[in-house]
């Protein structure tokens, strides 16, 4: 639990400071490390709000957040199939 909280705080800072693709890779890895890594949605919201995705994709709500959410759902289903 401690590791999860620390990684969450670090990723929130990284979302602001580091390039977007770093957060993407971190979410990809951490979603397999932690169960129900739905806090990735928070990182998605930060990226979407900071870089203004709503001004680029007018018909899709919070693109990165949506992608992260769908990805986490997919990973959780995949884990269930593997019985991890």
């Amino acid at each position, binding site marked *: 639990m401690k590791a999860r909280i620390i990684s969450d705080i670090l990723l929130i*800072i990284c979302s*602001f*400071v*580091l*390039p*977007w*693709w770093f957060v993407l890779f971190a979410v990809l890895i951490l979603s397999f490390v932690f169960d*129900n890594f*739905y806090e990735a*949605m928070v990182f998605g*919201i*930060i*990226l*979407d*709000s*900071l*870089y*203004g*995705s*709503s*001004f*680029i994709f007018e*018909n*899709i*709500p*919070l693109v*990165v*957040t*949506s992608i992260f*959410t769908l990805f986490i*759902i997919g990973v959780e289903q995949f884990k269930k199939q593997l019985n991890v």
Partner: protein
Amino acid sequence: MKMIYHLKSRKKKSPIKYFVIGFIILLFIFNFFKLNPFSSITRKISYPVIKTGSMIASPFSGVSGYFKLKRDLERKIQSLEGEIEGMKSDILENEFLREENKTLKEGFGRNEDEEKGVLAVVLKRPPDSPYDTFVIDVNNEKVSVGQTAYISNVPVGEVVEVNSKTSLIKLFSSSGTIKKVMIGGVVETEAVGHGGGRFTATILQDSEVEVGDAVTLVGSKQYILGVIESVEEDETKTLKLIRFNIPFSLNTTRFIEIR
């Protein structure tokens, strides 16, 4: 005979699932009403965090230079010196033409004073940003939505969001953005942004344009938007596909002017 009954699974459904589904529905509702309640919070937090991050990172910005070969660096310096020499004459010619233009306009009674803009520091730029957007350190007291952003007198984007701490600029080259342009001073057409400062435009086959021609925005003032990189013939041989770029790298932009 022993009967085996499968007990129904009484596994409780996780509340996280309901939260996620609710959140997705909420996103669509926000999008429908064009709301983004997270934007102002994120922008307020972003300013001190990004500033602190860049302060910490700045001493390490030149680290990659230590790992480059001296020979490569010398070669690069030589080629850049050659480019600078070529540009010097262009700058002189440009200044002469600007003066001539000003004199002519004054002669015709069109005295256009230079607009004074607001200088902003670019906090976030591509490739840090996944889209062609800039986050700048100027707030809603100094700029407003709809103003144009310039780099060295080249219009690059438009202010789309302002806040009490930072503002957001959507670049003209962002994917799908359409702008009316004049190519080579002879053909008027629409240019489509493709991200990373790149544009494409289609013109008729018989139009006389060449690589290196300037592309200007259509408007009262002739602002250069880019320089033609390539001219390709269409398969049907009726149209030409023009590819042009903003004349500098967006990745290294540190300052921007808002007017």
